C-alpha cells in the first residue's frame, strides 16, 4: 500500500462519522468503525467525491483471541489511494452487516470468512459454507480451533482374491 489516505481526508472522515476511530500517530492508520455504521461508512467512502473508494480489493478477518477483526481494504483507482477499514467484533457472537449491498463482489469473500472464521453476516443473500462441507463443524481459521483426529481408515491387503484388513 504505497499511497495511504492522508491526514486531512481522515479528519474529514472523522467529521462525517464521529464514531470512527484511528490512530493519528501511525503511518497507515486503520479506521475502526462500529459494526452498525459499517455500511454507511463504505457507501460514504465509495460515493463521496473526495474519497472515491470504488474498489473493495480485499475483505478478510483476523482472530485476536478476545475479539475478531473484520478488515476491508479499499482502493481508489485514479488517485491510487488506499484505506483500511476495520470492525472489531465480539468473540462470542460475531455478527457484522454484510457489505454485499455496497460491493456485490464481496459475496464469496464474506462466505469464505463465514466458513473459515465463523463470522455471521446479516443481510448476506446466500450465506452458506463455501470451501468446507456443509456438515463440517468448527471454523478452522480461529485460533482456538482444534483439528479432530483423522478418521482411521482400515488398510486393506489383497491376497488370492480375498481382502483382509492389513493391521
Amino acid at each position, binding site marked *: 500500500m504505497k499511497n495511504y489516505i492522508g491526514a486531512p481526508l481522515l479528519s474529514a472522515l472523522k467529521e462525517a462519522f464521529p464514531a470512527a476511530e484511528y490512530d493519528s500517530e501511525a503511518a497507515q492508520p486503520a479506521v475502526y468503525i462500529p459494526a452498525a455504521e459499517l455500511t454507511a461508512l463504505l457507501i460514504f467512502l465509495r460515493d463521496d467525491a473526495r474519497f472515491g473508494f470504488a474498489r473493495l480489493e480485499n475483505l*478478510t478477518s483476523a482472530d485476536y483471541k478476545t475479539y475478531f477483526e473484520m478488515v476491508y481494504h479499499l482502493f481508489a483507482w485514479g488517485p491510487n489511494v488506499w484505506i483500511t477499514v476495520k470492525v472489531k467484533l465480539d468473540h462470542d457472537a460475531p455478527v457484522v452487516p454484510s457489505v454485499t449491498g455496497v*460491493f456485490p*463482489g464481496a459475496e*464469496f469473500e464474506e462466505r469464505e470468512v463465514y466458513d473459515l472464521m465463523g463470522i455471521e453476516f446479516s443481510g448476506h443473500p446466500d450465506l452458506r459454507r463455501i470451501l*468446507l462441507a456443509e456438515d463440517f463443524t468448527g471454523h478452522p*481459521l480461529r485460533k482456538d480451533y482444534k483439528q479432530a483426529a483423522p478418521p482411521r481408515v482400515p488398510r486393506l491387503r489383497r491376497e488370492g482374491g480375498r481382502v483382509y484388513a492389513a493391521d
Partner: protein
Amino acid sequence: MPQTETYILNMGPQHPSTHGVLRVNLELDGEKILRATPMMGYLHRGIEKLLESRTYIQGVPYTDRLDYVSSMNNNFGYCRAVEELAGIEVPARAEYIRVIMAELNRIASHQVFIGSLANDLGASTGMLYTFRDREEILDLFDLVCGARMTFHYIRVGGVARNLPPEFAEKCRKFLDRVPEFTEEYANLLMGNEIFQRRLKGVSRLTPEQALAHNMTGPNIRATGIPFDLRKVDGYSVYPQFAFEVPVGENGDNWDRFRVRFREITESARIVRQALEGLPEGPVMAKFPKMLKPPKGEVFSRTEGTRGELGFYIVSDGTAKPYRVHIRRPSFINMQALDDMCRGYLIGDSVVAFSAIDPLMGEVDC
C-alpha cells in the same frame, strides 16, 4: 397439455472440463442455462492456516501450490508482502530476475489457458500445441531452479540463486520463437470460423458487471477496463519497461481470449527488455536468517496471471505470521460465472469456465 419443468445438471467435480475439481450446478431448461451455481472446496488444503504455523521463509513453497501453473507469480506476491512487512530492500538484479520469471510464467499460464479453452471446445490438437511450447518455458525454469511446477525460486529477499550463464541465450532463443508459435495458434484457432463463432458474443459482461463482481486480471481487461496492477501500482521494476495493456471491447469470451493472447506478446516484450537491462550484483538481500518482522500488518498485491493476487499478513513480532489471508483472483472471479452462463447453452457453460480461467488450487486455497 404437456408440462415442462427445469432440471438440475450437476457438472463436476469429476468432469472432463471443469479444470480440476470445480463443481457447478446448472439449472437447465432444455439446453438453456437458467442458473449456474459454482461449488468449490474440493481442493481446500487450508494453506492460510498452514502458513500460520510456518516461518515466513518456510511459507514460500506453499504458495507454489496455490496457482500451480503460475507458481512464480505466487512466490513473487508472497515475497513482496513479506519484504514490505519486514522492510527488506531487494537488490536490483533480483528484481529484474523476478520480473523475467513472472512474465515467462505468465506466458506459460496463458498457454495453458489457450490450450484448455481449445480442449473444452473439442479441439484437443490446439491444446497439445500450446503444451508443447509451454514445455520450453518449463525447461528454462528447470534450468534456473530445478523444478518444473513448484519452483520455489523467488525467495524472501531476492531469488534463490543467480541465473545460470546459458540462461540468457536460451531465453532469447525462446523469445524469438514467440511470434512463430503465436502465429500458429492464431492460424489454427483464432482464424478458425467455428472457434470464432463459439466465442464471439458469448458470456458477455458489461464493464459495470465486471466491476460489480470485483473481477481482476484479463477478465476485467476484456470488458475494456485497463486495470493492470503492473501499470496501476507500478510495483517492482515494471515502470522501467515499455509494454501495453491489451483491452477488449465487448467483454465476451472472444475478448477474454484475445486479451490473453496479446498479453503473451507483451510479456515477451517485457522479458526481452529485462534481459537487456539486467544489472550485475547480488541476487539476495542481507537480512537475518531467522526473519522476525516488526509488529504490524500489510496488504500487498501483484498482478498474477489470473488477476490481482493479494497477500494480507499480520505479524505479531515472532518468526511466524499471525494471520495470512490470500486474495485469490480466481476465487473472486468465479462470482461472475452465474452472469456469464445465464441464458446461454450447456456448450457455452464449459467455455465460460474456461474463459474465467480459474485454477482450483487457487480457488480452494
